[in-house]
């Protein structure tokens, strides 16, 4: 009898790590995906001294906001690719047809997205901090706030990317959907850095960013998988 053969099961952790490995491998094969957000991040931050004023005191003042806005825009830029190629070549519909929960794959894809955009941006942020004359005391605050804040950006962005993947030109729509939701992260993120510049404790800001991350971790994969289903079936 056919039904009685091959009752193999795949545990959730196995599936999670397989999905993570696959997405990381794909990013490393397509180097442009990896470097475009980083170069964009650097360019945006360079425009401010050129366009507004190269005055160190002015730059130190705006540095927290500029670095955070640049990180946010760089993340936004990379969102469209999250599900797009999988949708185009039909691998996304195969993921839907797996008897395993789609949520696990969505979580892994989001984490892979963060590891290839948010994490490198965070690691590069001290360089931008130095370029913008951010006081060295505030560097730790900058890195920590980005470390906790950027995964939230990936989680929120994944929902937008999943909702728009079925559309031919989803790029602009993603920004409109996702940017308003990014505002709280931006406020607390740059707030943390400003507090660090002023020598105030940043624990409260980081706790709020952490709360956002916890919420995103729990809820976003659910919303993302539901959105993927809607996009593919439409």
């Amino acid at each position, binding site marked *: 009898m056919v039904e009685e053969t091959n009752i193999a099961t795949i545990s959730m952790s196995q599936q999670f790590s397989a999905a993570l490995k696959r997405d990381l491998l794909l990013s490393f094969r397509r180097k442009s995906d990896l470097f475009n957000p980083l170069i964009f991040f650097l360019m945006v931050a360079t425009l401010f001294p050129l366009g507004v004023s190269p005055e160190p005191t002015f730059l130190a003042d705006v540095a927290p906001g500029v670095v955070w806005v640049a990180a946010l825009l760089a993340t936004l830029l990379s969102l469209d690719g999250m599900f797009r190629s999988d949708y185009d070549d039909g691998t996304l519909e195969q993921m839907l*047809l797996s008897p395993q929960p789609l949520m696990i794959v969505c979580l892994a894809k989001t984490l892979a997205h963060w590891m290839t955009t948010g994490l490198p941006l965070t690691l590069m942020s001290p360089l931008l901090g130095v370029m913008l004359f951010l006081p060295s005391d505030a560097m730790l605050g900058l890195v920590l706030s980005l470390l906790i804040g950027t995964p939230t950006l990936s989680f929120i962005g994944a929902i937008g990317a999943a909702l728009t993947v079925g559309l031919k030109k989803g790029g602009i729509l993603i920004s409109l959907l996702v940017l308003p939701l990014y505002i709280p992260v931006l406020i607390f993120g740059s707030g943390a850095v400003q507090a660090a510049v002023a020598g105030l404790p940043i624990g409260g800001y980081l706790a709020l960013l952490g709360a956002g991350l916890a919420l995103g971790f729990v809820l976003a994969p659910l919303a993302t998988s539901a959105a993927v289903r809607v996009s593919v079936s439409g």
Partner: protein
Amino acid sequence: MSKPLLAVTDLFCEREERILFDGLAFSLKQGEVMQIEGRNGSGKTTLLRILSGLSAQYEGSIEWRGESVDNVRDEFLADLLYFGHQPGVKGMLTPQENLRWYCALHPALQRSKIDEALGVVGLTGYEDVPCHSLSAGQNRRVSLARLYMNQAPLWILDEPFTAIDKKGVAAMEQLLLDHAQRGGSVILTTHHDLAAQQGVVKVNLDSF
């Protein structure tokens, strides 16, 4: 006779305000090969997407082993192998990596059979070549290699013979018949005339 594996009753689907089919009904038994026929645009792909659960834009009932498919979604998916309109092969990955990913998605696919399956579909020697440098036919063969790696009771195949050479088509047809003989069922669409007419049930969408 045993009860049907998949029973469709009174299926209705409309697209862009055009009725694709209305009152469509058929049932698929174990060991049957069913060929869905119809003109271009008659809704063959849409029907297969509805049957596999990718699309929910339909009215009517679909039953899997006597229960509504919505209630037994996980069991149904575990028993299903779907080959879609797009091959579902990542160009940046090698054939081997693509199949390994499929094994991670689907417990019914046997990882140990990857090399053997690639050999059968004629991709020996291409294991480490990224799929984007393979031909269209070879890409579809990568995805079709899954058929040699599992014994899922139901195969839904959308135009499996497109871009496959004559020898490949003959081998595929034999595979489908072997699968049916082992008790598996197949639903497929193709414009190609199947060599074996016996045991192939035909459903023509133009008449619904």
